[in-house]
């Protein structure tokens, strides 16, 4: 390795998690101020396994394996493979920009200086979806694939195995990359690529929403999962889960609004007080418009959430349950609701709690934590849209465009 100076992580999993944390801090509305995360993520992971807030477009699920194959095919030592992979990834950034991709390009700003490469960002997803066959870190993969390639080269012509060359750890059926991938590239899937990715997604075990939608990607539209046209056709278990997620999405939203209202009051920002006051009023009508609490069995809801995340802390469940209670009774502007929010923040942040400590308010950006619970739908929708377009594309038209 080259000499380096940076932050230390215990393992790949922690590195991935910390990168997500850092990403969430780039948009303050997505920072989880009151600790809904464990419930939100339980739904997100069950609906859309393998996705991450760091993801952008589905074709990265092919880009990364292609570049891996390219970097390991020759059987070179790990250090050389690592350097080659990185240089390919940087070239891919430029190729995508050259292909006219204006958004979704990971590293479009940083380019050579990019620290978290797409391979790292997509690694857990590639393993989850079975595009990468080995359960190992990227480094381990490069080493092993290099060894396999070297061994494969040692094999004489007569011994070549039926499957077509050594196993380099990438799924055998992956379509061949476009010839000029590193010169100019787009996020558009060719038909054979879309077919392949669709088959991988459909085969995901566990009956996830992602699998179900991959079989019929045309239906993946709408602002939220429960607003997509296909929602009526969902199998019962998915349908129930989506319904719980919908109700939580609406019921929860008042909590960060009240939190921001209280901070606006404390900092005497009258302009913001009226902003959040109005937002709360809108949210009140949202509750009735969407029949959020009508016939919502919360014991059923909680047993569902617990099945998705057995490690859920009782303190988190209690807090969210009590919040739902005050919201249902229309008491969310009352003293009890405010106390609930204050206590929750204090419990999470101690002396760093903003409602308690004036100085902590200095880092309050109005709207903190008010990002809607979307359960990574935006990412999944982008995947499915890409997939649908790929499946319906006339292949002749894509490769020829310069």
């Amino acid at each position, binding site marked *: 390795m080259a*000499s380096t100076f940076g932050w230390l992580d215990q393992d790949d999993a922690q590195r991935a998690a910390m990168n997500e944390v850092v990403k969430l801090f780039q948009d303050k509305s997505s920072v989880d101020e009151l600790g809904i995360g464990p419930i939100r993520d339980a739904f997100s992971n069950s609906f859309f396994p393998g996705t991450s807030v760091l993801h952008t477009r589905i074709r990265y699920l092919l880009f990364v394996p292609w570049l891996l194959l390219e970097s390991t095919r020759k059987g070179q030592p790990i250090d050389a493979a690592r350097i080659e992979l990185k240089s390919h990834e940087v070239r891919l950034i430029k190729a995508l920009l050259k292909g006219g991709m204006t958004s979704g390009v990971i590293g479009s700003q940083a380019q050579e200086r990019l620290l978290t490469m797409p391979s790292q960002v997509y690694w857990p997803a590639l393993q989850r979806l079975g595009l990468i066959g080995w359960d190992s870190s990227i480094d381990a993969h490069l080493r092993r694939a290099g060894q396999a390639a070297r061994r494969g080269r040692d094999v004489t012509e007569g011994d070549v195995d039926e499957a077509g060359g050594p196993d380099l750890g990438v799924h055998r059926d992956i379509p061949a990359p476009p010839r000029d991938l590193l010169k100019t590239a787009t996020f558009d899937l060719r038909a054979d690529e879309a077919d392949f990715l669709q088959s991988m997604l459909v085969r995901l075990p566990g009956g996830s929403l992602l699998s179900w939608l991959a079989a019929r990607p045309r239906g993946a539209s709408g602002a939220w999962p429960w607003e997509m046209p296909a929602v009526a056709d969902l199998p019962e278990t998915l349908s129930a889960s989506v319904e719980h997620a919908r109700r939580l999405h609406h019921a929860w939203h008042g909590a960060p609004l009240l939190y921001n209202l209280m901070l606006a009051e404390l900092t005497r920002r009258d302009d913001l007080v009226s902003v959040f006051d109005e937002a709360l009023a809108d949210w009140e009508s949202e509750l009735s418009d969407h029949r959020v609490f009508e016939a919502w069995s919360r014991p059923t809801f909680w047993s569902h959430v617990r099945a998705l995340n057995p490690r859920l802390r009782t303190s988190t469940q209690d807090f969210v349950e009590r919040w739902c209670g005050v919201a249902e009774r229309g008491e969310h502007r009352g003293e009890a609701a405010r106390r609930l929010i204050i206590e929750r923040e204090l419990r999470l942040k101690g002396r760093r709690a903003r409602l308690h400590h004036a100085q902590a308010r200095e880092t309050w950006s109005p709207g903190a934590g008010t990002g809607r619970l979307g359960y990574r739908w935006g990412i999944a929708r982008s995947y499915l849209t890409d997939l649908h377009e790929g499946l319906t594309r006339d292949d002749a038209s894509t490769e020829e465009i310069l």
Partner: protein
Amino acid sequence: MLDPEDRHLLTDALRPPAGHAVDAALATTYTLDLHTLLLAPLAMAAYDHSEGDAATIDPATPVALLESIRRHAQHTVVLCQAAGIHVPPTYPRLAAFAEGIVAEVHPPPGGTFHPKIWLLRFIDVSGNHRHRFVCLSRNLTGDRSWDTVLVCDEDDDAAIIMDAAPLVTFAAEVLEMLVRPLDDAKQNLINDLFRTFAEARLSVPAPFTAAEVLALGTPSGGSWPLPTTALSWMVISPFLDVGALGRLPRADGRRVLLSRSDTLDRVGRAACRGAETLVLQPMADVADLDELLDADDGRARQAQGPPPRGLHAKVFCWDDGEAGHVLTGSANCTGAAFGANIELSVHLTGPRVTCGPDALLSDGKSGLLQLAQAYECAADEGVDDPAYATERRIESWHAAIAAERPALEVTQPGDSYDVSLRLELPADPHGLAAVTTVRPVGLYNAQPLPVGRTAIWRGLGLHALGPYVVLSTTVTLDGEDLTRECVALCDVEGAPADRLRRLLRDLLSRQQDLLRYLTLLLGDLGADDLLDRLASDDDDAGGGLGVGFGQWFDDLVLLEPLIRAAARDDDALARAHRLLEDLRGDDGELPALDAEFLELWQVVWEGRHA
């Protein structure tokens, strides 16, 4: 610099470059976790497993882990502060093979042994050496804190070099402070490591243009490196004290302290002398929100809480008008770090723009500041934390006990073993002996016994005869019990000389485990696909149990690696030979293997130089 996205793994730092193997390794740490200790050889062996968490070592890879420990234990030395070992929830079976790795260091009077470094030497097939220096802010534990890692790799072509000789001087001086001398083989190995390491051309990472070792607290150590005045500075330190804060440079520009809230409260606002005081934002210091709910406010008061989190990096960064400076490593911004403690940090310098406080602070949209928030100390004056002082007192007491070289005497009255502790108690001004108990680490249900009296435990198995005891001290503070536990090393006398061989035989008592191990030994270094195929066999699927060797033999294709190894003529056959010798019973038999294999082995082994 130190962009939050610039993240590295310790396993990568310990892994040999391609075509190399670890040849000698010396590490220092203040505290040590036995599980994490086991992971170090795994990284060095370049066996890959996907999880870095020792608690979840893939059960399919014990042979790889066992081999990496056996292979690397002989040339790895880890120095930790006496009684600085954490109490493990269980004493892992494989830990027996790592028992010889750890050596304790006497803490300096009134201070702690605190450096966290690795000196590594790799060797390639031609016998050429390459060296690497790693300087961390994290101990050899499973912490999940915000910690830094600096890696300086040997590079003959590098334009900018750090002088490695002071590292060797530092390590040699530390070796003078051991509770027990290293055995001859280890001492010779380390001497040889020193000989070559001092000459190593360690390259300095960009964007820095110079680097210098700063040892503290050793005879040749340096002192406070910061100037009296600077344009601006930023200090990241989980611990602070009034004395060290008072020595920070006077500066007209920005002055920033990033620490922990309880630390800032302890020192008080006045001590921070008008610097901006920051802490990490609550959601930035954990990867999983549940962890926040697990942690107490402030320090966990239990002997075994979850792994520590939050800020643990120690970075001093200043701009002197000429250049940017960074001091990184083990030294906190405390009087102890620059006084009584033994520490090791590295002083890096480079252009102001890329290496000074501005580069660290960035613009708040990216970089570290986006994860931080202002924090107002609770009061002008600091508050004493009586628990903190008590904990330090207990820690010193445990270190003093370990420094007395306690010994475990083993006797074997029947099938099992009895162990008694021999210990001269050190001076005990605070009367802690009366509230301190001891038990062997491998014995969970054993009655902890008071340290001051005769302690004997009966009916131990072979595995429990390890050299570690658990010391536990409980004092009452403000009506609450405060317990501190640690593990101390002991001399073991009278244990069977072939204990490790017999433990190995127990571990490899099943034929398929032994065959896996042999395959691993005969294969190339690293994980090859044969091993993976074996590892993916379901252990208890009955596939291997009770099946004749002939069938295994065909399935396993052990013949091929055997012939390949013979053809390669590296030391794989010798390693396999040593393993088989280790496994032979007193009657010279290898019960786990069939005659058919042994016959073949014999042919290959004897014909290896033909």
